[in-house]
């Protein structure tokens, strides 16, 4: 399992570097597809099967297809720049520093056990939907979908509805802006 994690994380890291360093836009976009898919596999390894499927369908299957679609339609030329310049060096240094900081934080603060992540407990033990504490067994007994839905439609109903309104407004706005004027 740990080996799988390492492989997937390495692939995600390499492909996200590919997003930045590819000279052709289409390769950047496709690297992003790979990154997104690897994140989905990470969800699967963490036993969040629902999030895995949603990540694949929404990001890899819909959003990125549109990205690639647009890139191919406009077919921009390859970028005229050296593969490694000052920007790249600074970027790599930044990534390394941030990653190191995250690892140090993880070693000192956040603990992980086989029972799942232990975050702040908000509710009571008799009412699991009001806690942030999801032992792996409990989630898998109820099913990923049920657990996510239970949270989404009780605790986080207002943010959820506001987000959906926002998306609806954006969709209507996009249709209005791209509409051929009938004047």
């Amino acid at each position, binding site marked *: 399992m740990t080996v799988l994690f390492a492989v997937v994380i390495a692939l995600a890291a390499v492909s996200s570097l590919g997003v930045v360093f590819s000279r052709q836009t*289409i390769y950047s976009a*496709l690297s992003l*597809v790979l990154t997104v*898919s690897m994140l*989905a596999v990470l969800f699967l390894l963490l036993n969040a*099967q*629902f999030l*895995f*499927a*949603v990540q*694949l*369908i929404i990001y*890899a*299957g*819909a959003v990125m*297809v*549109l990205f*690639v*679609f647009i890139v*191919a*339609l406009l077919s921009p030329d390859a970028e005229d720049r050296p593969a490694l310049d000052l920007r790249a060096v600074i970027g790599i240094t930044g990534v390394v520093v941030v990653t190191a900081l995250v690892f140090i934080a993880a070693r000192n603060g956040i603990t992980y056990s086989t029972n799942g992540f232990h975050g702040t407990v908000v509710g009571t033990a008799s009412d699991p939907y009001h806690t942030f504490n999801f032992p792996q067994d409990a989630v*898998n007994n109820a*099913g*990923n*979908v049920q657990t996510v839905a239970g949270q989404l439609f009780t605790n986080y109903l207002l943010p959820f509805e506001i987000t959906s309104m926002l998306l609806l407004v954006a969709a209507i706005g996009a249709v209005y802006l791209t509409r051929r004027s009938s004047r």
Partner: protein
Amino acid sequence: MIGPDDLWWVLLIKCGVLVVFLLTAFAYLTLAERKISARIQLRYGPNRVGPFGMLQPAADGLKLFFKENVAPAERDKILYLVGPSLAGGAALLAYAVIPWGTNNWFGHVFHWDIAHVNVGLLFILGVTSLGVYSLFLGGFASNSKYSLLGGLRSSAQLISYEMAVSFALIGVVILSGSLDLEHIVGSQQGLWFIVLQPLAFILYFTAAFAETNRLPFDLPEAETELIAGYHTEYSAMRFGLYFLGEYINMVTVCSIATALFLGGWLPLLPFHPFDWIPGPIWFLGKVLVLLFVMIWVRWTLPRLRYDRLMNFGWKVLMPLGLINIVVTGAVVALRA
């Protein structure tokens, strides 16, 4: 409990059996397609290689292997190969979670499917949505106008009809209360969902034609306007992989329709002698019937115009799917 499903060699054998099954299905689907189309057009079809032309697929396969690979010089070298590999790979991957039934052997529960995912339905939708890339990348990397047009069409068409597919499936999910394919089949005991969700079945099966690039929705490869669309510039086995992906996708969508609407491995009537026939045979039989319908439709209906196709997807299938969701949800909520 550790059952036979968890042993690594059982898993390996299952994978092997499934790949062999799918490749055989692909080979004989091509023969079935040619035979049935011939009968529809008052011809005989292939009947020279082996009895009734049964060895024709083997001959075709050999030919594909030994043909010269002709590729455009100005192609994108990497993506040109990624396209067909993805086409074959994604098609095979989606089939891992199709539920063929369970058996109780020597006190152990044995599942016929390779992976048991509790969001099996979403898994299939996710993996098949990656199939878009194969068509699109193939069209893009060929560096040919026909291919690019085919690729662009395919991505627009597949995204649009994915919505229709998902909306059609939500009705079934509401009724069974689960995304687990095995659970969905189990909850059809007594009454198949095609009776309760006839509209959803029609919507799903219609959109499935678009998802698999079959006539009347085969615009990405419409030969009268685009030569062969996204695979114009492919030959030999690279073309063969696209061909394989398309036919295995047909098997996949028919299997999903069987599991969701036609009661999967459940027998036609729940008493003797019907339940003497084992579940996987029932499943296979139902899939074969749907496959025949797909071939039948291809050789009897003309192709839609491209704008009509998009209008049909967004203005007919989508609203009908939404109505189906609202009505199903209301009925379930009122009866609860």
